[in-house]
């Protein structure tokens, strides 16, 4: 008797298996906590990424470097969306982690240099430092039962203390190794991110190579956060945001979940801080001041804090608007940002991008019904 179980099937099942594997992967990226699902959404996503990849071929180096500058901030915005939009705790001091990591990158690379890919090791150390600091601060806040608006007050106070401290480090005694902190003028002279390569290191100046690295990082972080927010962890975060007492009475240690969300957000703000410092080779105490602390709140609120996609799109839109206003309107740009925040809070509290996306979704469903 012939055993047919090992014979090759006449029907090739590989494409079907590949399709179901792809669907399983997609299922991790989709869910009730994030906008967008299905083949149409992911087709648009691929097209947008492809367009972003093609963009440097149609723009000059300065403009591409400027686009890279916009991408630098998206990590801090997405981190704030996790803490504020998903976990319901408004942090007004993400810039503390931004500044801490930025200065850490400067101190490390000025002292050690950029060879053997150390700039990337410094990036990891600085981001980890921001994460650890977020863990310590978050522990005292969440395990100390600080809630609501007081989280904003504590985090804002921390970033302002950092700014004030760094601003008075102008004297020569304020140096770590050969890295001068330099007070209000800020720290300069750190190298850009540098890739070790055969025949000579490649320094990622604010041009095409840095743009591609940042674009890749943005896509990775965005997709990673979609997976995280649609996991059990993300479910618990939105449960805490909606009704913390009920979440605890379902057996969740809500302090731990809030702390973890805060660490994720702090580390992402730290990533922005390092990339900003590497992008411009400088960092100043201003980056932790009141204005700097308020801007991420505006970006995230305008896009729609409760959705990571809306936050990402909104941040890029507001940043480009802000830069245009700064070029033509100088200090009035900040007044416009403040006015924008007030208008959003009053007229579209869910955010412009998320509100628009929900409207399109409703209209599509109505037409389909």
């Amino acid at each position, binding site marked *: 008797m012939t055993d047919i179980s090992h014979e090759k099937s006449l029907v090739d099942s590989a494409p079907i298996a590949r399709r179901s594997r792809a669907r399983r992967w997609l299922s991790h990226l989709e869910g*009730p906590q994030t906008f967008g699902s299905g083949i149409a959404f992911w087709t648009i996503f691929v097209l947008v990424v492809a367009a972003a990849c093609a963009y440097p071929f149609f723009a000059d180096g300065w403009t591409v470097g400027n686009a890279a500058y916009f991408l630098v901030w998206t990590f801090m915005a997405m981190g704030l969306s996790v803490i504020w939009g998903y976990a319901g705790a408004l942090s007004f001091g993400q810039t503390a982690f931004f500044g801490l990591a930025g200065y850490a990158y400067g101190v490390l690379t000025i002292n050690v240099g950029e060879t053997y890919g150390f700039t990337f090791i410094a990036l990891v150390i600085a981001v980890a430092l921001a994460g650890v600091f977020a863990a310590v601060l978050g522990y005292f806040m969440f395990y100390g039962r600080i809630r609501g608006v007081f989280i904003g007050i504590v985090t804002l106070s921390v970033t302002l203390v950092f700014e004030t401290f760094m601003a008075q480090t102008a004297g020569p005694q304020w140096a770590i190794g050969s890295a001068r902190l330099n007070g209000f003028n800020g720290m300069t002279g750190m190298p850009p991110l540098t890739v070790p390569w055969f025949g000579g290191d490649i320094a990622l100046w604010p041009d095409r190579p840095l743009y591609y690295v940042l674009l890749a990082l943005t896509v990775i972080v965005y997709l990673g956060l979609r997976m995280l927010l649609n996991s*059990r962890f993300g*479910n*618990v975060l*939105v*449960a805490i945001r*909606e*009704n913390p*007492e*009920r*979440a*605890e*009475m*379902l*057996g*969740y*240690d*809500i302090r731990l979940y809030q702390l973890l969300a805060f660490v994720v957000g702090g580390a992402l703000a730290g990533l922005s801080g390092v990339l900003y410092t590497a992008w411009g080779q400088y960092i100043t105490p201003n980056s932790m001041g009141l204005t700097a602390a308020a801007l991420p709140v505006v970006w995230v609120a305008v896009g729609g804090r409760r959705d990571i996609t809306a936050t990402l799109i909104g941040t890029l839109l507001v940043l480009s608007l802000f830069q245009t206003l700064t070029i033509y309107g100088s200090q009035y740009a900040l007044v416009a940002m403040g006015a924008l925040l007030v208008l959003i809070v009053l007229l579209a509290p869910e955010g412009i991008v998320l509100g628009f996306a929900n409207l399109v979704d409703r209209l599509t469903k109505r037409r389909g019904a």
Partner: protein
Amino acid sequence: MTILKTEKLKKSFGGVHVARDIDFTLEKGEMHCLIGPNGAGKSSFFRLILGEHRPDGGKILFMDEDITDARSFARIRKGISVKFQVPGIFKALSVHQNLTIAFQNHLHGHDLEATIARVLDFVSLADVATEPAGALSHGQQQWLEIGMAVGVEPKLLLLDEPTAGMSPDETHKTGEMLHELNAQGITILAVEHDMAFVEQIASRVTVLHFGAIFAQGTVSDIIAHQGVAEIYLGGGHGG
């Protein structure tokens, strides 16, 4: 077997004593109601059991384990489940999401979905599974919370006025649900004002008054108790 026991449980806020040396015992499989006039300390007693208030003295034992110092979430993980007086649901999330969040600590994959389907059927919410929980009627929101509380098969279910704001039909249906859950082995302790509902569900009743146990017994014992009628029922029981 005793499932819940309190020994000399004490709590006061300022000069107000909400629990005065409460010695309370709940046997496994009971359907027990806590009644008492407003301010008697019923909700405070619940909050002490749940760990939302720390007692000033005394002990709380669950399945013979001292949980007096355990945090709320840790007590829930040991098998206590709760339904609040004001529906404690996640109003912006769908009914399905509410149940997912309630059960995901214990169940995964197909088991999770099968349990959600079973509970949706049990609480008659299968048709509105994708609706936001906040869009449900008050009675449906109460049922959703009961579903969230029982899907993980707790050992003890605490209900704080489970029929508050319900129509007579909804109240009766809730009573039937609780009997079914009790038959499945879940011990139930409920704070309730509606004496008709207490008569429908309770095997034993405890009357609290000024933070202390005033009387205990079957429903008919309590109704016949002259002192209870004076402090709580206003001279008679009207249902």
